[in-house]
């Protein structure tokens, strides 16, 4: 078991290898000016009507409820934004260094003009990659039994293009693919634990 932090980094070598193998059709990444990597928007923000940033994720969005994603609005994007990528990650698990094992949801090609996502629905064009469970689907917060909250982060990336990438892509591979095209990022955190209500519902249905 390794506890390498930070949670959200990509191994640079793996990222480079990935670009070489998968992305030549998008043009030589070596020509991307280094400046684009640093001049990123700090205004992009996520708004979620269902729960506040840092608050508790309502049961319906968890895998003990309806297991659907909440509505999210993407605000103040950089003007050049062409698409968004979105990752839902279990921070507590990501802290152990398992980028892919912590990814509950991996989405890209959300059109810029959509301005966000409606509850339980993705706009046309959006592609869902593989989550930690190996499924091309949303996996709501689940948390182990106990009084402790786990922390789930919606990571939003505003991108200057769309991507032709296979649906078999996992979180770390997506991050490697989009790295040079990120215009801005935003983060929104929800907490979840197995409340008595969550357990009751789980027991009733299983």
């Amino acid at each position, binding site marked *: 078991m390794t506890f390498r932090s930070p949670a959200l980094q990509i191994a640079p070598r793996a990222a480079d290898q990935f670009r070489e193998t998968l992305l030549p059709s998008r043009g030589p990444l070596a020509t991307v000016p280094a400046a684009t990597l640093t001049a990123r928007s700090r205004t992009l923000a996520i708004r979620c009507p269902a729960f506040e940033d840092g608050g508790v994720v309502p049961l319906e969005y968890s895998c003990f409820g309806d297991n659907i994603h909440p509505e999210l609005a993407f605000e103040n994007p950089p003007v050049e934004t062409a698409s968004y990528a979105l990752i839902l990650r279990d921070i507590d698990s990501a802290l152990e260094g398992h980028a892919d094992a912590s990814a509950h949801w991996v989405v890209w090609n959300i059109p810029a003009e959509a301005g966000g996502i409606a509850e339980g629905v993705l706009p046309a064009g959006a592609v869902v990659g593989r989550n930690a469970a190996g499924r091309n689907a949303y996996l709501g917060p689940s948390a*182990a039994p106990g009084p402790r909250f786990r922390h789930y982060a919606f990571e939003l990336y505003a991108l200057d293009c769309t991507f032709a990438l296979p649906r078999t892509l996992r979180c770390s591979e997506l991050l490697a693919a989009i790295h040079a095209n990120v215009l801005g990022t935003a983060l929104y955190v929800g907490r979840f634990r197995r409340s008595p209500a969550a357990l009751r519902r789980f027991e009733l249905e299983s």
Partner: protein
Amino acid sequence: MPLLIESTAFEDGGIVPAPYSCFGENRRPGFTFSDAPPATVSYALILHDIDVALDGGTEDGLHWVVWNVPAEAGGIAEDALPPGSVVGRNVENENAYLGPGAPAGPRFHHYVLEVFALDRTIALAATASRAELLAAIEGFVVDKAAYVGRFKRDPGMTQRAPRDSTTVARGLGESLRNGP
């Protein structure tokens, strides 16, 4: 029961009050640790800004690193570390606490406190990097928990807390007294 972190300074997921930020008094929040496994001998703490990593950094903003907090202390009091604790180097290369200090803008940054319960104390110089700390504790972690605080800079927050000798000397003093 898993390791549980609690704080009287702010609630999990809540907003870090200004006095604990580097635009306030840079005061160190207190935390209690409970329900640790019986094998726990010491704790290691890492406080970092995870929003920075999203910006493509390979090292996110490391604000505070502490190890060898004795298990019997059951946590850390506000603005005081129990004897034995060692403060490592933060992103500013100082052996000190660096309170949240998000860049100006409308957005909250998210500060994650990671607490590792360890089955021993760690012999590590106070100059060690986070990577060295994480390598040193590997295999000795008996439980782990996280606690999140949010902070954004209000328009009035223009002056950082003085990086005076007190903050740094305090951390250094603790480390020199307690380091290997």
